[in-house]
Each structure stands twice: as C-alpha cells, then as structure tokens.
C-alpha cells in the first residue's frame, strides 16, 4: 500500500520505504530522513534569480546575496526530478522537514481500506 506524501514522494507502507513517485526509485527507510536517499546540489542563488539591475553598479540587484543565501536542490538519484528546494545560509544544517509517525500512518490506511 502506497501513500503519497508530497508531489514527488510516497511511502510504501508494507516495505516501510520512501519511493520517488516519478520513477519508483527506493529512497530509503520511511523511518529515516528521505533526503538521505536524494542527491543534493549547492546552487548559487544568482543562477536562478538573476540580477535584474547591473551588479557592477548596484549593491542590491533583485538577486539574493550568495554570501547570505544558497539554494539546496534535491534530486531523485535516478530520474533527477527536483523533489525539493531549500533556501539556507551557507553551512546551515538542512532541516529534516518530514518525520511522520509511520505506525499511525499504517493504522490509518489499514482502517480506511
């Protein structure tokens, strides 16, 4: 039995595994942080939010300051779908965002069936 948790992640309740919803790749134990099953890239935010004002002339350009802000991009290791983005200061530990009670989830879905 699979439960969709986000646009790109689901949990196989029987196997207790995180899976990619696009390609079915196993991303690790559903009792663990799903991010451990993904690839991560430290993106310079100016590559996504490009300066609209001339950076040679101005201190503030509509682009984030890369010394203050980085974008962590999380990809499925198989299909490379961008599962999450996380805006953080350089070196800040990523947040373990989802930690659902797997036993509660199993109970709910068993009862609902």
């Amino acid at each position, binding site marked *: 039995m699979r439960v969709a948790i*986000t646009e790109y992640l689901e949990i196989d309740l029987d196997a207790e595994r995180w899976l990619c919803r696009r390609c079915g790749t196993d991303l690790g134990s559903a009792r663990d942080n799903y991010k451990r099953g993904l690839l991560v890239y430290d993106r310079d935010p100016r590559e996504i939010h490009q300066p609209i004002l*001339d950076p040679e002339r*101005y*201190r503030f350009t509509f682009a984030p300051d890369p010394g203050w802000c980085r974008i962590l991009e*999380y990809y499925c290791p198989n299909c490379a779908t961008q599962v999450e983005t996380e805006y953080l200061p*350089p070196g800040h530990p990523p947040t373990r*965002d989802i930690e659902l009670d797997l036993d509660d989830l199993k109970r709910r879905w068993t009862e609902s069936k």
Partner: protein
Amino acid sequence: MATAVKSKLEQFLDETVVFYGPDREILGDHRLAPRSVLEERAMAKHRDPHTTSLLRSKLEVTAEEAFYQLEQTGAAPGAKWGDLIAGIFTAEGDLAVASSGGVLLFSVVCQPVLRYVMKYWRNEPTVGVRPGDVFMSTDPRFGNIHTPDQNMFIPVFTDEGELALWVMVIVHEGENGSVEPGGMPSAAESPYMEGIRMPPVKVGENFTLRRDVVTWLQNSVRDPMLQIQDMKIRLSACLKIKERIDEIAREYSWEELVAALRWTLEDTEAEVRRRLAAWPDGTVRSTVFADSTLRENALIKIAVEARKRGDELVLDFRGTSPQFTNRSNNTVLHALKGMLAQEFLTFVWPDLPRNQAVFAPMRVVTDYGSALDCTPEAPNAQSMMTFFPAFTALQMVVPKFIYACSRRYTKILSPWYNMITTFIYGGINQYGETVGNLCADLNGMSGGARDDADGENSISPIFAAMTDLGEQEVLEEETPIVKIVPHRLMTDNCGFGKFRGGTGYQMIATVRRADAFGFMTTCVGSKFPSTYGLFGGYGAPTYPLCKVKGVNAFDKLKDLPEERWTVASIMNERPFEGARYSTHHMGMQFEIVKQGELYMIVQGAGGGYGDPLERDPDAVIKDIRDAIISESTARRIFKVAFDARTLSVDAKETERLRNEEREARKRRARPFDEFLKDWVKPAPPEGLPYYGAWDDRETIYMGSPERKAPRGQALGVTMPDPRDVRIAQLEDMLRKAGINLQE
C-alpha cells in the same frame, strides 16, 4: 511594629495596586473561556442546530453590514480598502462571529483586550462595565497587533441586565503620533516612540464619546480630523451591530442568542479537532529567514517544529532569534497567534465559521524574550517583519501534513508573498494639512502556486482574503503622491516551478506640489528571499528599494517613452543626466522626497510549486507573451526550445534539453550524507550577522559566532545606530587615507 499596625499595612499593600501592566496569563491563553453561568443556562435550553445556524447567519450578516458601513464611511485609507474587521464576542471575550471581509488577522488578537476588561475593569469601582459604555484600546501589549490599529467595543446586556456579549470593530487607522508619520515607525527604539499606547480605556458613556478623551487623543496625533472622524464612525458601526442584535433578541430571545454564539464556538472547535485528527500524526519542520531589522540587514532565524498528535497541533518556535530591544520588528505573542490563525481561517479551512475557535486546538510554544514573543519593553510597530515570516514557515509545514489526507478543503498551496510592499507616507499635503498613513499596495501580495495552477498575480494580502488596492485617483486627491507607474507587472519576478507563483507589479512614485512630504518603506528580503517554493519549486527573488535623486521627473515625462518607465530600464540605462541612482534594503526610515524624485519598489512574488522541468511548455510560452518571464528565463530555467520569431515550441528539442538537464543534475549533485560532510559548519559564518539557533536550538547566536547564549538566557540584542556605524566606517576610511580627523 505592633501586630495590628503590621496587619493594617499588609492589608493596605494587598489592596493597593499602584500599576496595572500587561497580563501575561491573559496574553498566553487563547483557548475558549469556560462557559459562563448564562451560557450554561442558555445552552441547556437551546440546542436546535437549525436555530443556531439561522441565528449565526443573521449575526454574520450583521457583522458584514457593519464592515461595509465602516468601509464606506471610514476616513482612514485603511478603512477604505478593508483593513478592518467587525465582530461579535461572547461575554467572556471570545470572538464568535466575524465579518467575512477584511483583516481576519484581527480575529484572535482582540480576545486579550476583552479579557483584560473583564478581569480588571468590570469590578473596579472607578471604571466598571455598564450599559452604554464605550471602550477602546491601541496598545498591543494588551491585545491588538500594533499601535496604528484602533478598536472600539461596547458591552451588550440582556433585558434583565446580564452581560450577554460584546461588539467590537477594529480599523487600521494609521497615524498615531509615533516618531515617524503613518503609525508604523521602523525608527522606533522603544515602545514609547510608537505613538499612543492606550490600554483598554472607557472612552464614552451612554453611547456617547467623552469629548475630553477625544481631545486628548486628537492632540496626540498628526491628523486630528482623522482621529475624531473615525472614532465616531467606529462607534456608529458598533451601535449598528447592537441595534441589529437587539432586533434579533426581540425576535428570538437573549438566551437563544447567547446559546447560538457559544454553540458556534464549540461546534467550530469540535469540527477543527475532527479535521486535525484526520491529518497523519508526526512532526513537520521548516526554517525561514528574515534578513533585516528594517534599520540594517541581519539574518534572523525563524523556525517551526509542528507536532501533530490526535486532534491537537503544537507549533513550536523555540530557537527563533532573540528580540531586538531597540528595533521595531519584534512580535507580541498574540499577534503571532493571530497571524498563524490566518493560515487555517483563510488558506486551509475557509469554509468554517470565522471565529477564534478555529485556532483553539493549536498550541504555540515560544521563548519569552524572542523576536516572536517579545517583552513589554521591546518595540513592535513593525512586528510584521517577524510574524509574517513565521506565517510562511507554517505555510511550508501544512502541505506536508495534508497532502496524504483523502479529503482536503483547499488546494495544496505554495507560500504566498509575505511582505507589505507599499509606501508609508507623511508630511504636509497639497492643502497644507498634516497627514500620515500608508498606500493600499500592502494588499497587492502575490499568491503562491497551487498543485494544479499558477499563483495569482498581486491578488491579496496574507492577513486578509478580501481587500482592495484602492483608487489611485483618490490617493492623488488626498496626498501629493504621484505614481508614474502604478501597476505594471515586472518580468521574471515569480517563483519558478511546474506551476509558477504569482508575479508582482512595480511602483514608481514621487511627490508633487509639496515641500515637506516623504516616504518610508518596510519589507525584509533584499539579500535573502522572504518567500519560498514547495516540492521542488523556487521562491521569490529579492527586492531592493531603488532611488533616483537629483531629478525632477515631471520635466522628463515627455523625453522618456512609456515603455522605458520601468525599474530595470531607469536604473540600468540611467536616462536622467546628472541624477543620482542608488539601491538600498527595503527598510527606509522616513525621509523627505523632493518633487519629481523617484522611489521605486516592486511587489513580491509567490512561491513556485514542483520541478520547473515539468512545466507545460505552452504555459512557458504564454508567460513570455504576457511578459511575465523573459525568453532567457524560458530557456535557462524551464529548458523550453522555441522559435524566437513565432514563439512556437519545438517539443522534441524541449524534451532533449530537459533530459540533458536531468543528466547534468545527476553529474553535479552529490549524495546527501556525503554532501553534508563539506556543507555543514558548526556555527554561523564569520561576518554574517546571524541571530537565532544554528543546529542545536539550545544555543542562540546573537550576531556573530562568538556571541551566543543558552536558550532562555538570550534575552535581547541591542543594535548600534546604523548612522553611527556608517560614520565609523567613513572615519576609518579617512584615517587610512591619511586624513587627520579633529576629534
């Protein structure tokens, strides 16, 4: 001391209270009050749900009528575009019925005001609560959000003289005599620079305002006409609600009415608990950052850990930045709660009755003395600069609970843009009158993308579902402000994703025919974005304040074609010879604007949803046609191949480019655990003014890696005056250049 004398002294000290301050017990408890004797009696007799529903509808219509009356007659600019609410409260002070339009944020923050009156003034011989009394408050330390908001409330009694309920209206009035005009001073360094601070005060009797009190208030603000006009208008709206309630009570009975109010609250809480119980149990976290105190850039951490068990939700913000003791960006706890309630009232369960029971099953945990739960001595006129990001943190949490739910009441939503991108103004207008207030553009926030649709462009603020952007002509009639480019969308200003966030418009403003008139701006997010994406989508960009000084744009209107009146064109092409062009963070304290000088800001974007490589190529092309994105962004972010002349999509080449990008992703990224070894640092980087917890939330940083304290002992940060910092920098440069400064 003789025993009798000692006993008398102790009795005197017990009975003599020399100072009533804010009551933390009241402020910390937003749950519904226990049923009153009257409620118990009424509810035992009246439990017909159809009658409850009918009476609730009648009361909702009553609140709605008062809302429109205020909107149509209010003098404050905020009233004209719906920055207000009208509500009916239980006798113990719980909001049971609110108008559907306006600022629902007010829904939770009014309760402490009424609780205070009931606890301290009801039995106080010099005050009391009697038929015909009129009360008012402005001090956020006793309820409300910040000092520009003024409420008015009256008790309503049964025919037998029992207190049945309260009626309250609250309006963002703006001008309040604070250190800067307009009522929301970012320059305030103490609460006593933030304008009139009025705890709950009886301002009238026999349904009539006391002229001495009104005169005191008028003489405390820059706009005395606004003060008296809107006090009368607020009272009039309260009386309209009372008149309707009296009619309803005559048609039914006071007991049926009181029972309906209380059943409405209890039924709403029961329904919220039922809906919460359907969420999966677990913990969801998010971390956001505000990058400014409005006086200087500072990286202010706001993190939430949401723990859901059964039918309760705990929102734990411990580890958030300490408060800033001489900056106005601190939040009083109930204002935080009011804003968090917005997420549920407006974005998650908008179908529920609008009352504060919606938030009753939630518990909020904070560090007292943090930026989200400040002490009474911390200024808080610009509390939005921390409680708006806290709202965004919650908006990032909720979808991760409800995506798995079989029944949702709204779509999955990426974060809404969360800053008030507007001009606060003040000075002497073209008629010689002193005014101070703000423009309606604070209501122009862009919507986040949804799980099946793009976000709406500049649609409504996060604190109110239904407001208005006002009429430009009315603004120009009342103030010297001229917006040369009022509402033109800016290209590439959106959160990219499978569905993109809404985009915002640019504003180019100046003044005309006024010598002593100026602006303020108040947003965070000039170095670190304030709004983020969801499930692989990107967030908003960052936003500067752009100025062009030393020019009179009115002399240049004919010289510059209309299409070149954009922020990017003016700043990059510098069409005005001899003018000074500069950019700044968005925390500008009040400054005088000379005729024709340009102040330019851009309304923020909503967060994107999903991987941009999954966006329908035809939607990308439509965005190019609509000038929402550039051709460069279409190729760079969305990897869409198209003919630049015809804008026709090359589907095969798009597929190839997207697959190529997916392969590139795999090459450049690393497995999470391996990545962490290099990425994670034990403390904030040297040179980054960082405030709040880093990894371990028990350690709070206060501006540098060395300056830290255990959580609970980081009671506040005092910042230096940015002008002193700048002077020191310039003096240092002069010394290094060999110039001798005479001290």
